């Protein structure tokens, strides 16, 4: 069971030397108890204490990487059941399942789809993170060949070896060992063999069983066999099972400190209809999955799933925001139009994207409004005529441009009069209400 802050404090050096970054040993102990600090930050703790604290200082949900390199995905490490309580930390990995009995051409095509799946949204680069290669051929040689080919054509993707046959799995693990594939999966029948492979090659292992009782005893067995990086598959297939099982797993780990289920979760959401699959995937993303495996990755589906994952994993306390400054788009000069907006990331990226689309070189003044959208910022008194006027004056833009015209968002047309009063000598023009009308608007002015 987890130790309290005071119990942990008794095991620390009690010198208050601050090397851990906390003002006192007690503060550090409290943070440890809440899973918000890492014991290794105290250089002076004794070996004996370390052992005793080992379990208590481990996070309630184990954290490790899926894949290698800078595109590796951190799994686990979550601390809350509801995002508003703090935040969800490690966005789940999205994976696509590919069968090994496809033709080489098809394998290459699918792997290439994954390696080209990256999209940018609100300043983040998002992608399909992993490929699950399914052992469907029944031939170990074919499996190894398919795994090699897929790994080669999708060099950044993490690999999931979807293969219950220990011999075939071992050959494949060896073939792509440098990529640290996730081995899927150990069951009650093959646990020893799979644990042996995972241990020998230092790769994570998925435990798969029907129901959480069977799953708990399986992970205990795997740990006894020396495997620590474990992913959980409770056998959930319907969205109902996904919601119920995942909730029970997360609760058991966080609220009961139940170690056998303190691991990241994998869900398979295959459906015949791809939109139905997207709907099921969105349930798994919201409800605690760390890896969601899909059967198909159309572009429209990726965009939608990347977006729902990004939405739910943003920090609820701090909206995503960009730096306050005047951005130049498409190499503007002294005569280029000047527009203003707020520093909410979503607003900035939509507006700057549309200005780029217009191909009209422009200046976009982005004003700090604490990450709020245009109307929200206006309603909250952070995007007012007085503040905008002050920002424009302080920005030094008057020295950079030869005109005195400021284009404001159509949604705050109401500000134009007051702004003309406050920004002497300036002409205020009301732009369109929606950003997608900006290209037509700018091109219309330019001609």
């Amino acid at each position, binding site marked *: 069971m987890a130790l309290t802050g005071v119990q942990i404090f008794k095991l620390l050096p009690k010198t208050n030397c601050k090397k851990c970054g906390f003002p006192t040993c007690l503060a550090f102990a409290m943070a440890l108890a809440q899973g918000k600090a890492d014991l290794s930050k105290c250089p002076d703790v004794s070996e004996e204490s370390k052992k005793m604290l080992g379990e208590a200082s481990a996070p309630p949900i184990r954290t490790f990487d899926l894949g290698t390199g800078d595109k590796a995905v951190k799994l686990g490490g979550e601390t809350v059941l509801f995002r508003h309580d703090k935040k969800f930390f490690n966005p789940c990995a999205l994976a696509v399942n590919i069968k090994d009995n496809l033709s080489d051409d098809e394998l290459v095509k699918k792997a290439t789809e994954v390696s080209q799946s990256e999209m940018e949204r609100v300043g983040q680069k998002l992608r399909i993170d992993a490929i699950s290669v399914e052992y469907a051929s029944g031939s170990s040689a074919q499996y190894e060949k398919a795994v090699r080919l897929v790994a080669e054509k999708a060099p950044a993707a993490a690999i999931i070896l979807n293969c219950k046959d220990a011999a075939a799995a071992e050959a494949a693990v060896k073939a792509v060992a440098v990529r640290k594939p996730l081995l899927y999966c150990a069951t009650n029948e093959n646990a020893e063999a799979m644990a042996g492979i995972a241990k020998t090659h230092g790769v994570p292992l998925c435990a798969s069983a029907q129901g959480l009782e069977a*799953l708990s005893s399986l992970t205990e067995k795997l740990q006894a066999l020396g495997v620590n990086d474990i992913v959980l598959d409770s056998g959930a297939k319907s969205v109902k099972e996904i919601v*119920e099982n995942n909730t029970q797993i997360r609760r058991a780990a966080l609220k009961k400190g139940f170690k056998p289920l303190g691991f990241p979760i994998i869900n398979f959401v295959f459906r015949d209809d791809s939109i139905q699959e997207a709907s099921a995937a969105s349930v798994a993303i919201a409800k605690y999955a760390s890896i969601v495996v899909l059967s198909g990755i159309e572009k429209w*589906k990726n965009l939608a799933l990347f977006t729902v994952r990004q939405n739910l994993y943003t920090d609820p306390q701090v909206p995503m925001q960009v730096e306050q400054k005047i951005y130049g788009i498409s190499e503007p000069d002294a005569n280029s139009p000047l527009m203003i907006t707020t520093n909410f990331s*979503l607003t900035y990226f939509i507006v700057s994207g549309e200005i780029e689309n217009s191909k009209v070189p422009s200046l976009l003044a982005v004003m700090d409004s604490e990450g709020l959208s245009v109307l929200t910022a206006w309603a909250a008194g952070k995007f007012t005529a007085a503040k905008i006027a002050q920002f424009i004056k302080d920005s030094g833009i008057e020295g950079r441009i030869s005109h005195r015209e400021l284009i404001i968002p159509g949604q705050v047309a109401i500000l134009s009069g007051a702004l003309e009063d406050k920004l002497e000598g300036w002409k205020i023009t009301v732009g369109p209400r929606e950003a997608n009308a900006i290209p037509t608007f700018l091109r219309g002015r330019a001609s």
Partner: protein
Amino acid sequence: MSFVVPKESYNGKVLSVDFGKGDKAVVIGGENTLPFLSFEGEIPNRPVVAYEIQDCPPEDWPERVRNEYKDVSGDPVTWAKHCQDNLKAGAIALRLVSTHPDRENRSAEDAAKTIRNVLAAIDIPLIILGSNHIEKDASVLVAAAEAASGYNCIIGKAQEGNYKTIVAAALAHNHKLIAMSELDINLAKQLNILITQMGFDKEKLITDPMCSALGYGLEYTYSVMERIRLAGLFQNDATMQPPILGDVGMYVWKIKEVTAAEADVPEWGSLEERGVAWEAITATSMIVAGTNLLIMRHPKSIGIVEKTIAELT
């Protein structure tokens, strides 16, 4: 260590609200657990999806969803019957868009007439929505409530700026009522208190904490809904126990992701699926957060969501 199912015990439950008449009447809410956790509570009713229609042709809807109704949307009665008879809708939400002063500014009497005609043509439950113009809705919804007297409709939306007359009308004509506030749990609570202080029964209320589309503030709606549910269930806060509405269609079917042609954004893939998936995922996220009643537009996304709901219950 042996696994013990980690159950929560809740003190409160979501109120159940019925609307419509006869054997087509629908009940929402009534659960005493968080969404779909039937291992620890009762979930007597599943979330319901209402088809959105409006009292004038949907020229402001993007082509992909407008086309679905092109043969029927010229007239709200035909449109409503189409949803009921051909699409097997369980409920309809009629938005009185044309009453908005910036649209056709049609009168409250006109709206009342439309309501009477639609109600005469269908036997499934009806949700009656104003044009979301605070002042105009106050008169339009009063007339609409009267026209629908006896039909046990849901009327909405009552907001801070106009709730008094709308509440009085719903009370007089025995309708259920949507109370909408702006993405803030305290505002939602406050409005429900004001409304019940007028003598309106809390068991006839539906909370709309305001929806937002996937990619456009979904996370705010999601968390406000979760917090409302937790307050109602754990703290037994009666003002937080009405069923929740997700007015999904109108927020989804205006954003770039459901309108931009594939030729303009090839990296986003097929527009047809993109639009349907966008509405379906927005709605799915809402029901996972606690929504009991959805208002949606595209028949395909509604089909997807109904299947997901069937799988969840």
